[in-house]
């Protein structure tokens, strides 16, 4: 289904159907340069999250949990406590992230974004990967923000760079890592530097891999003609895909704020169920997986790092807390293995895997996951080759 077909099914004018709107005109910046490759936003499947699959998945998960916990009330309690705590911990961050996304949607125009970002793709990517230093976010909050930024035309590479770099390259994570490692500043420094390098590498690779293929989903409430600023005349028609449009134009600041929160509320409800499913899987893993199993293989080269990457994917910990878990493996596992845990978790875990479905196409998610795991593995192997010993 292409953009015009999608527009037809939504009963909205398609880009190019109107003589005043050139095809995909919104995909060019104010200087007239192709800023956001149009192909990234067309030829997409309908942007409806695969909830049917989610339901099957959730039912299967619950069945598995029921089987595992049959007759074991203690296990059910542990599962419930961990499940609820993960959701409660992530919820405020996700709500704030959704609000930031809503405010970006309403107050930041595409032209504004294009004007203030570097024009060179690599410079934009390098900058985006370090944006967490100024706008610290955890991985739960960053997804709704990136979702809105990509809707505004932020290039794929820059979006991926902020998505991966933001939750690691930020002062809060640096502080928590130092705290967990008894103020060993260089552990935090290695983590941030490696995280930054991986974010930039994966982002540039994604930009290259998907230069001619769709990678980003169109937001359900962002029709093709409304990709621009809310102040544009084209957006004041009040179509069903974006019913607040007319209000925003006429209502001033209050109306814009109301629109921002409506966007934020929609974003939250669109992403939150993925968080819940991810938290359930993580709680199940935390209840069933014995962490001592990871220690039995610690003598082998690189295997502990791979296992720790697997553990990070399963546990779904917040990037601001995972250093404490990694530090609990000191004395048993090498620093590279601990680093594998701290680098993988904030970029890719089960919860994020599901949440990425609201931003990227399936192919893009597969490529993203593969590149992240590969990059972490290479970095960890490099650290081992450098002779990083036991801490």
């Amino acid at each position, binding site marked *: 289904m292409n953009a015009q077909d999608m527009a037809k099914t939504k009963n909205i004018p398609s880009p190019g159907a109107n003589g005043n709107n050139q095809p995909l005109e919104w995909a060019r910046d104010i200087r007239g340069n192709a800023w956001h490759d149009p192909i990234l936003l067309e030829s997409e499947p309908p942007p409806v999250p695969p909830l049917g699959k989610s339901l099957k998945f959730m039912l299967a998960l619950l069945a598995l949990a029921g089987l595992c916990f049959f007759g074991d009330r203690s296990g059910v309690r542990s599962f419930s406590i*961990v499940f609820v705590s993960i959701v409660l911990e992530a919820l405020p961050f996700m709500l704030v992230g959704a609000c930031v996304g809503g405010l970006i949607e309403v107050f930041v125009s595409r032209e504004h974004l294009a004007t203030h970002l570097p024009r060179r793709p690599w410079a934009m990517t390098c900058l985006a990967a370090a944006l967490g230093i100024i706008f610290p976010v955890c991985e739960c909050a960053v997804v709704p923000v990136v979702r809105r930024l990509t809707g505004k035309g932020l290039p794929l590479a820059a979006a991926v760079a902020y998505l991966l770099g933001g939750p690691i390259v930020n002062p809060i994570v640096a502080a928590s890592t130092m705290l967990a490692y008894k103020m060993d500043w260089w552990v935090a420094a290695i983590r941030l530097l490696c995280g930054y390098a991986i974010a930039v590498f994966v982002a540039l690779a994604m930009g290259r891999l998907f230069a001619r293929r769709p990678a980003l989903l169109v937001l359900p409430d962002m029709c093709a003609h409304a990709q621009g600023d809310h102040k544009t005349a084209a957006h004041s028609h009040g179509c069903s895909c974006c019913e607040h449009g007319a209000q925003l134009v006429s209502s001033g600041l209050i109306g814009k704020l109301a629109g921002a929160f409506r966007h934020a509320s929609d974003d939250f409800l669109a992403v939150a169920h993925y968080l819940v499913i991810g938290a359930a899987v993580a709680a199940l893993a935390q209840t069933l997986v014995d962490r001592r199993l990871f220690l039995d293989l610690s003598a082998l080269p690189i295997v502990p790092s791979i296992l720790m990457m697997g553990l990070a994917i399963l546990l779904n910990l917040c990037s601001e807390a995972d250093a404490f878990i990694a530090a609990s493996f000191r004395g048993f596992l090498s620093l590279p293995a601990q680093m594998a845990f701290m680098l993988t978790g904030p970029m890719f875990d089960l919860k994020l895997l599901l949440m990425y479905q609201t931003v990227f196409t399936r192919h893009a998610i597969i490529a993203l996951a593969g590149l992240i795991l590969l990059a972490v593995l290479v970095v960890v192997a490099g650290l081992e080759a450098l002779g990083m010993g036991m801490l």
Partner: protein
Amino acid sequence: MKLMRALLSRYWRPLLLGAWTCALSSLLPGRAYLNFLRPEFVVLLVLGMLVLLVFIFSAINAQPKSFDLDQATRVLILILPLVCLCMARGTTLDANAFQRRWTGMAGINGQSDTVMDDETRNVSGSDEDIPLISLCRWPKAYAESTVTVVGMLHRDPKIAAQFGTNACVLFRFVINCCVADAVPAAILVNGIPGDWPESTWVRTSGRFTLRKEGNRSIPVLHAVWAKQVPKPQQPYLY
């Protein structure tokens, strides 16, 4: 049926967000959130509630959206944490979770320095309970002194085989952000009655020593007395 569908189309989002707001607000009285999060998170919970309230007003004023199977599924999934919250209320991680999370003597390897902060130093040597986490962090500082601690009981056949049939583990969980990242702080205890069930909360006192095992010093409490106690108001350590 039509009316029901129309009402759901109009109000499912405010109702769902309202249920979440109620769930968050129910955690505040009696500091029930401490069963899941560390104390500082109360600020974030209140912030979350405020944002949810704004979302509710926003959703009430929004145009109705269809309530189909997808939306119903989404609602069911989003209700699941609320159901589990009811199930988990008043409970804590127990010996079952300890078994899964304990990575051996990582937290009690006796290599910690003897420097304590002022607060800990004041507690040391008094009749008050010493937090289990202090014994694990600064074992040398407490070595050969009499201490009183509160923790949960765990019996492990491997530990009994290695340290004697009377040996068991006294543990508490230390939270960094939430229970999901809780790490056990544990010491070995000798002298707890063998018929006390698993996961019992115990207050015990005795001589605290460091037992050499290879290149490690394992903290051991030789209990003089022990009694079962109710769950502490703050079951987790921070």
